[in-house]
């Protein structure tokens, strides 16, 4: 049986038993990508040679009797926002076309140390700004459930690669929901760890105080395995948490929530949420109750300001983070005819190199930080951030974890919201508070919406540095739902690449 429909842990097991080789597994995934990625367009770059070489190395070391890490030989799709030495890193932007970084991100260093085979780089909204992957300069990614629909964003490529069985593991990054929202609309699992749990070194920054890389997979256990592989203190990231990594895998295997208090956030399930989303969410709650959890309702009155605050803080930081793309040291250069000055060449390059959404946010952020407006906009947004943290503190005093639907709706059609930024921004209404407070958040599938047959995501939020809790609750919920459904949700993804 081909490895492509197997979970990461099943692949790891067959590799360690010698039932298959890492090269075979890598080749099967590369073949799958070749067969279906024309439809899905999850990948921006496929590193065939590198992946096979990495796999061969793992096989050789295993043959030599070396004890290898749990995920050694398992393939992975890497979001194109993470640097990998010598491999093109575009961040979905024309600006970085052809740039091959001279260094590995810490996440990549850790993946390599764990023997994970990196298949290639996945598509994303330009510089991680978007909720649909339509903002990629290299064309949109299609949702494997329905190719006319968006796979979420910004990490639509990573999520789609999982749902299309092109890779069993993927890396995403989450600034306002870019791991969780794509996971929700593709029926996969995605975790945004506590801020500082995974090093940001080599993650091309969008909004430094919100960005966090995290694991994506098709089930909770695989996600936990990948979480443990990439998390941990990194002296290169001054905001990295200097504490041992929690036991995520153990938590994912507990399958027990008896006595746990689960808080439903009142403000994250009311108006504007699709009926089918609410139905599936409520069923999942019932499953948790049956598993022994106690449900409490909590209120977070300031969450309604989270979206506004987010769209000030993230653009402000991005306006500064993206200033370095000026064509002087790397990336494309436009208009250098020997006559024009550096400043004009910078302006022309940035006009052509950045897409519409990126420019919109840079201008918004530049405004919010300007003298005269700073206090009213950026300053006020920072205060809202305090209020949101206080809301979370109060809620976590009543509940061990908080839950909500991950998104208000299922996947929408490509192009549907492209011209309405505010409507697009609303996608992240339930995911943004987590980033503002720096806590952990997970999205896992809780069924298909009745009205459109598309996946619905269930969000679990855990207090900072207690990421294990979401794995414990997520693992339990997943097992309960699986026993109801009789088969994994993703087995219903339509066949791809048939033509």
């Amino acid at each position, binding site marked *: 049986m081909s490895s492509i429909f197997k979970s990461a842990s099943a692949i790891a097991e067959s590799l360690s038993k010698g039932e298959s080789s890492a090269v075979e597994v890598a080749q099967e995934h590369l073949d799958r990508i070749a067969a279906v990625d024309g439809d899905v367009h999850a990948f921006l770059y496929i590193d065939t040679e590198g992946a096979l070489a990495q796999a061969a190395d793992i096989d050789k070391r295993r043959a030599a009797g070396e004890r290898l890490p749990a995920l050694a030989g398992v393939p992975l799709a890497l979001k194109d926002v993470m640097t990998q030495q010598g491999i093109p890193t575009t961040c979905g932007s024309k600006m970085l076309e052809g740039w091959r970084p001279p260094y590995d991100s810490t996440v990549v260093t850790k993946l390599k140390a764990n023997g994970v085979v990196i298949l290639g780089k996945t598509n994303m909204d330009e510089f991680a700004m978007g909720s649909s992957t339509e903002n990629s300069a290299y064309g949109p990614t299609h949702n494997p459930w329905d190719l006319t629909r968006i796979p979420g964003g910004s990490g639509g490529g990573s999520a789609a690669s999982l749902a299309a069985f092109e890779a069993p593991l993927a890396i995403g990054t989450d600034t306002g929901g870019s791991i969780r929202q794509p996971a929700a609309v593709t029926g996969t699992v995605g975790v945004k760890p506590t801020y500082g749990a995974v090093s940001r070194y080599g993650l091309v920054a969008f909004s430094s105080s919100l960005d966090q890389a995290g694991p994506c997979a098709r089930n909770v256990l695989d996600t936990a395995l990948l979480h443990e592989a990439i998390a941990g203190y990194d002296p290169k990231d001054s905001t990295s948490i200097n504490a041992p990594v929690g036991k995520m895998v153990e938590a994912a295997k507990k399958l027990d929530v008896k006595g746990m208090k689960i808080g439903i956030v009142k403000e994250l399930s009311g108006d504007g949420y699709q009926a089918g989303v609410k139905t599936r969410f409520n069923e999942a709650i019932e499953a948790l109750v049956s598993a022994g959890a106690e449900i409490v309702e909590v209120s977070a009155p300031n969450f309604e300001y989270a979206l506004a605050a987010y769209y000030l803080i993230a653009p402000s930081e991005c306006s500064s983070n993206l200033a370095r793309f000026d064509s002087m*040291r790397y990336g494309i250069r436009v208009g250098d005819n020997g006559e024009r000055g*550096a*400043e004009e060449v910078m302006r022309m390059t*940035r*006009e052509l190199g950045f897409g519409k959404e990126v420019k*919109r946010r840079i201008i918004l952020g530049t405004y919010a930080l300007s003298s005269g407006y700073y206090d009213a906009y950026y*300053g006020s947004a920072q*205060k809202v951030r305090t*209020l949101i943290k206080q809301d979370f503190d109060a809620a976590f005093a009543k509940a061990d974890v908080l839950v909500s639907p991950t998104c208000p709706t299922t996947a929408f059609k490509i192009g549907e919201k492209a011209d309405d930024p*505010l409507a697009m921004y609303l996608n992240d209404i339930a995911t943004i508070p987590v980033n503002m407070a720096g806590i952990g958040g997970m999205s896992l599938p809780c069924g298909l919406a009745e009205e459109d047959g598309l996946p619905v995501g269930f969000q679990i939020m855990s207090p900072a540095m207690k990421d294990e809790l979401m794995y414990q609750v997520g693992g339990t919920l997943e097992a309960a739902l699986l026993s109801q459904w009789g088969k994994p949700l993703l087995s219903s993804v339509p066949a791809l690449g048939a033509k």
Partner: protein
Amino acid sequence: MAAISRDEVAHLARLARIEMTDSELDHLSDEMEVILGAVARVQEVAGAEVPPTSHPLDMKNVYRPDVVVPSLTNAQALSGAPAQEEERFKVPQILGEE
């Protein structure tokens, strides 16, 4: 409702070093008007008594020891350069300031 003029947007584009076309400026001024109207809501609850949070983590004093680690080679440093000369990054003439 926050009002932002087209001239202000043009000024912001200059600050951000983006050469915008006239129609882009027109379009963006309209969008900015709407977006600013929406985000200005933060002011409703941002009272003077609320302290700002600039960072999710309450950390301080994170330092690295003063130890030299190997640098990139000159070739690696220049590997992404659009133009180079004499082991340096070659850039268009720098005008106006120094």
